[in-house]
């Protein structure tokens, strides 16, 4: 409750939450909101191809004569499914690896962190391109690739926190009571890192959505589903030369919208829970001004 109040006091966080809520609402109710079903083939006249926006087709039509708005609405589903599932996967793997590496340390910890370092230095996008090209362009393959490559930062974050938490006295107390390692990790260490993990997971969703869009834009999206990245891909190839901006801009803006929303939420959560970003209550700039204005100026003594 305390945390919720703190969150609601941050305008950026509220804006982000509203933006995300809108997108989730659109994705959930897509069949009712979309004026046309984008999966149905339409018979087209030559004039319908890349027709500009009008009253019937609010965002115009694409090169197959389909409604852009409906595709945009259905595309939200793919983005959100990929984003949430992949980030949940990386959260789970990253937290587990971080907890184990941080708590047990020693050889296991070193080994796990070398794996993390290894994955961290490989550029993600080229690796994803190669894996998708080999494994095939299914939705699940895309989710797996993004989820299995995106957990390294979470693991590092969790490990660094665990290293300090495990030295705290309540962990020693649990040990002196005879608690098993599993119990200490789950009951005493994990609850302390959970807020940080959630803040990081929200940021990861936007990274995952961007990764999916990049893959789709490069032609490696799931061919059976409409996603924003894929729309960009088609628009880039076919609509740009005809100045059909209504096909290119909306998916671009949608991607920006949803990642901006998630970054706003994630940064706000991070600000609330991350001990490194938290400042003392006296550091509030308004109070600082009051203090400085009221206080006599202190002269720095001359150097001896």
């Amino acid at each position, binding site marked *: 409750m305390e945390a919720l109040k703190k969150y609601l006091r941050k305008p950026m966080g509220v804006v982000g939450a509203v933006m995300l809520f809108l997108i989730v609402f659109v994705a959930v109710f897509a069949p009712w909101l979309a004026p046309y079903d984008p999966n149905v083939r339409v018979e087209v006249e030559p004039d319908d191809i890349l027709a500009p926006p009008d009253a019937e087709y609010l965002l115009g039509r694409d090169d197959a004569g389909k409604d852009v708005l409906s595709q945009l609405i259905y595309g939200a589903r793919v983005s959100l499914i990929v984003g949430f599932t992949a980030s949940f996967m990386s959260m789970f793997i990253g937290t587990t690896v971080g907890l184990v590496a941080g708590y047990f340390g020693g050889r296991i910890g070193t080994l796990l962190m070398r794996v993390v370092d290894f994955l961290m230095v490989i550029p993600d996008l080229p690796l994803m391109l190669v894996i998708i090209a080999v494994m095939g362009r299914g939705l699940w393959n895309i989710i797996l690739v993004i989820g299995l490559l995106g957990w390294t930062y979470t693991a590092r974050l969790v490990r660094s926190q665990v290293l300090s938490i495990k030295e705290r006295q*309540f962990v020693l107390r*649990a040990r002196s*009571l*005879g608690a*098993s390692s599993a119990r200490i990790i789950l009951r005493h260490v994990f609850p302390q890192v959970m807020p940080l993990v959630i803040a990081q997971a929200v940021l990861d969703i936007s990274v995952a959505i961007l990764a999916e869009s990049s893959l789709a834009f490069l032609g490696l999206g799931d061919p059976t589903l409409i996603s924003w990245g894929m729309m960009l891909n088609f628009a880039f190839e076919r609509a740009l030369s005809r100045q059909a901006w209504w096909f290119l801009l909306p998916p671009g803006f949608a991607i920006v919208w949803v990642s901006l929303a998630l970054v706003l939420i994630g940064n706000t959560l991070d600000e609330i829970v991350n001990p490194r970003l938290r400042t003392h209550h006296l550091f509030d700039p308004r109070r600082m001004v009051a203090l400085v204005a009221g206080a006599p100026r202190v002269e720095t003594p001359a150097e001896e």
Partner: protein
Amino acid sequence: METQPILEVSDLHKHFPLARGVWGTLTRMPCRTVRAVDGVSFCVEQREILALVGESGSGKTTVGMNVLGLQQPTQGHVCFDGVDVAEWVHGRGVSVESNAQLSGVSRRRRVMILRERAQMIFQDPYESLNPRQKIFDIVAEPLEIHRLTASREEKAERVRLALETCGLAPADHFWSRFPAELSGGQRQRVAIAGALVLEPRLLVADEPVSMLDVSIRAEILNLLHTLRRERGITILYTTHDLATAGFFTDRMAVMYLGRIVELGPTAAVLSEPRHPYTRALISVIPAPNPRRRRKRQILQGEIPNAIDIPPGCRFHPRCPMAVEACRVSDPPLREVAPGHRVACHLA
């Protein structure tokens, strides 16, 4: 059983090696060590309260950790209930297997028996309670770990009893709260309740009142005293404050730089201190009557670090009475009166 001391610490050493760094490792520099505890021996009888007194850095907390087997001694032994603790925490070894009560059970169970019999209270009640657990869960956790209660009602009853014994009554007024909602004294009571709920035989109280307000201290110490009287718990009480130690302990061991310098009945140590260090400590206890101020004896300098321990008597650089012999030879702990032992050439 009554004749045997419940806790026997003999020649306990605990050294922590310092990291040498890359250059040190390459040049094979000798590994320097912090000698936190450097040859400590004492016994604690059943139902006795022994105070370990010393400045910070004198090694008293390290002794407590070794007594509970939370650290492994570098040298020497800690025997609790006649079993070597260093072997007990691993559940195997000669002293464990020859013990009648322990030989027939599994290794894990042996360790659990140790954890059940000996408990620790930590110095800082703001740190030793998990801030995300409710009071009930904190006190009930030992019961869950040791699977001691069959039903939820029984568990609640034991938690209630423990909390109310420690002066947190009515218990249900407190147990759904988080530690942050309680005061320092209340938290320390919760910590004690969490240690008592297992009905231990030995309680290591590591500076349990040093973080608390003076007004709360007496209450907590009275509580510990009552526990000894009513339940026969043996208490090893570490503190830097001679006044609180004199308040309720039976015997007192004064530690300096990882060694015991004076050990004896509390009344004897306080009324007739033999070691100059003990005298200095006693002279700075605040006296309630300002007219009867004693001459204070302020020690010069800091406690030396435990890496470069001075040769000879380790107290001589700060000792107001040091003579030539103190610089050369290390005084052994010898008996000066029945049960009163001092490590000083001049005593």
